[in-house]
């Protein structure tokens, strides 16, 4: 492990070491699975082997990932690294929001969930005034109308639409 040294490396140094280590370890794990997860076909030319391109790509990941780790200007964890990991970890919150949204749409329908999700998320982000919440709801409605109603993008109708009466049910399933 060494101190920062003059280097041509571009970008911030915080967090680079952990990323490089994880990348290399992942590449090595994939390399260890190469024999299990790919086949060597008999009577087939070398370049046409099913294993050829996975081997080239994982070999490249190990080689270049290893060189990148070796050439990093700082190979020692410092306080800034821990702060950076915390930011990466906190980013998972947005993944959870996104996945909850994804899971709720097929149940409660695209329009109702989007109309609820946009203001809720805006509230979470700290926009508490009424105008911003209305704008976010309007944006949500506009997205649904543009993509589902006008551009006919394939998003299924919500399960709750089944409980709507007659023609309203099919109208909602088709458009919202």
């Amino acid at each position, binding site marked *: 492990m060494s101190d920062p040294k003059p280097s*041509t490396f571009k970008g*911030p140094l915080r967090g680079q070491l952990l990323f490089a280590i994880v990348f290399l370890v992942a590449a090595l794990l994939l390399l260890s699975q190469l024999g299990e*997860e790919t086949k060597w076909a008999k009577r087939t*030319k070398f370049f046409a082997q099913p294993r050829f391109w996975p081997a080239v790509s994982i070999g490249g990941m190990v080689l270049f990932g290893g060189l990148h780790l070796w050439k990093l200007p700082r190979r020692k964890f410092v306080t800034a690294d821990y702060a950076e990991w915390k930011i990466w970890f906190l980013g998972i919150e947005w993944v959870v929001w*996104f996945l909850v949204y994804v899971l709720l749409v097929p149940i409660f329908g695209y329009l109702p969930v989007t109309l609820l999700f946009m203001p809720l998320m*805006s509230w979470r*982000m700290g*926009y508490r005034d009424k105008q911003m919440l209305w704008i*976010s709801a309007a944006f949500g409605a506009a997205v649904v109308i543009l993509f589902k109603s006008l551009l006919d993008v*394939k998003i299924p109708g919500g399960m709750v639409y089944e409980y709507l009466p007659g023609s309203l049910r099919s109208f909602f399933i088709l458009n919202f």
Partner: protein
Amino acid sequence: MELLLSSFDILARWDVLLALLAGSVGGVLIGAIPGVGPAVAIAILLPATFSMDPIVGLTVLLGIYGSSMYGGSIPAILINTPGTAVNALTTYDGYPMTTRGEARRALSLAYSSSFFGGIFSVVCLILFAPVLAKIAPMFGSREIFLAALLGLLLVVVAHRGQALIAAALACFGIFLNTVGLEPVKYSKRFTFDQSFLSGGVDLIVVVLGLFALSQAFFLLQGEDEKVRMTKLRGGMFQGFRELVRHPRVAGISGTFGVLMGMIPGVGEFTAQFLSYTYAQRTSKRPQDFGHGSSEGLIAAETANNAVPAAAMVPLLALGIPGEALTAMMLSVFYVHNVVPGPQLFQNQMDFVVALYLALLVLNVLVLIFLLFATNHLIKVVKIPNRFLGVCILVLSFVGVYSLRNSVTDCLIAACFGIFGFVLKRLSLPAVPIILGMVLGGIMEVKLRAGMARVKTPFDFIDRPVAMILFLMILGVLFIHFRHLWLERKKTKEAKWSTKHASTNFGMHLLRRKDYLLKERGRKVREKHLKYNPRSTDKR
């Protein structure tokens, strides 16, 4: 003439015209909002365009690609924040003009230069289309493999200071493309017996994760920036008059844009860098560059807007995308079973020319829109970043979920979103992953086909185009390693020149270590101590 008429015939449809209008206005808006960019917009809109005709879908995407750079110059000039990454050089001369109270002059100059760049490249390419149609059939499997390899290599070496990790990420992209069933032997590759991996990793899911979701996470995790806007004064047409006074800079910058755009993996940044350097070196007032020089602004904006049309050349003629945006567009072709490549140039030349004409019309539409709507348009710059993040998150859902209505796709996209978020935090490039995925697939198919007729390794490069491409690959590698060697030399010199005297004294002692520890050395030191006793010694 007949070709032009049949191309017009393809374009003369209300849905194509509507797509042109939507693409141009949407592209300008997206470009003008810092933090969105054309890659995010194209990624989100991709699945929506699958249900459209190829020409309509491509026109929308091409519209966003071609017009976003016009919009990107607005925040670059007014608030010193480039709207799209390629407008970074515009801030050098655009923002100083704004601080001098010449914001409208800078905007007008940027619009007119962009317009010139756009039109110049389209005209060049329409004129050269017949030549390209003759060259394209010379590309067989081996040549396309070598061109794809060259493109990948150029993308990697273009990331100066990050070439190693860019190469590793490109290899990761190639690996992602190999996951799933192998197309010839139908054997499973890295599926880990999971059914969702049997079909492979979908390019659109990766694109949406790496470009759209990661950007949403990045904005949500960041802070809102306070924006101070400048009021615009003066006419919008003065830029044209000024542009006419610098025909040489505009012409050369446009040419650089066209040439660099045509080479896969090079793109806007190199074109801008070359034209800006050229403009500065040949200018009568080089000291003004970076302080509000009109020539600098012309060079930057002309070069970047000349690229989109040229970037379509490797995509249409060889089926090789040169950068992330054209890689995304390739999927539109595949969905509609239109295979871009030499056959497209030979059999559907009218389709190719129609795309170029669409770009021509697009530039006119964008210019008209900007000349009259800039005053209202600048308000979009004020949209708070975190709110934009929420909007991108909701829009990304449309992109991922509408593909197959699959929650697994959304989960994979979210994982790539986090990966892209980490890459963004570390300022590492995501583009090599996408190009690795796209070019990796092309390289696998073409190498297999090319090697079938090859007996000795030299046979692979015995055709003239293959030999030229091979020499170009060697040339790129040579230039890169030479650059690395020079950089290393410079770093070493800098290290030595900043060394402290104490370090030198330590080194001096180290070199004399053996002598000093020997019997003779001890005697000499003892003798010297007689004349120079230590203060702690007993007397």
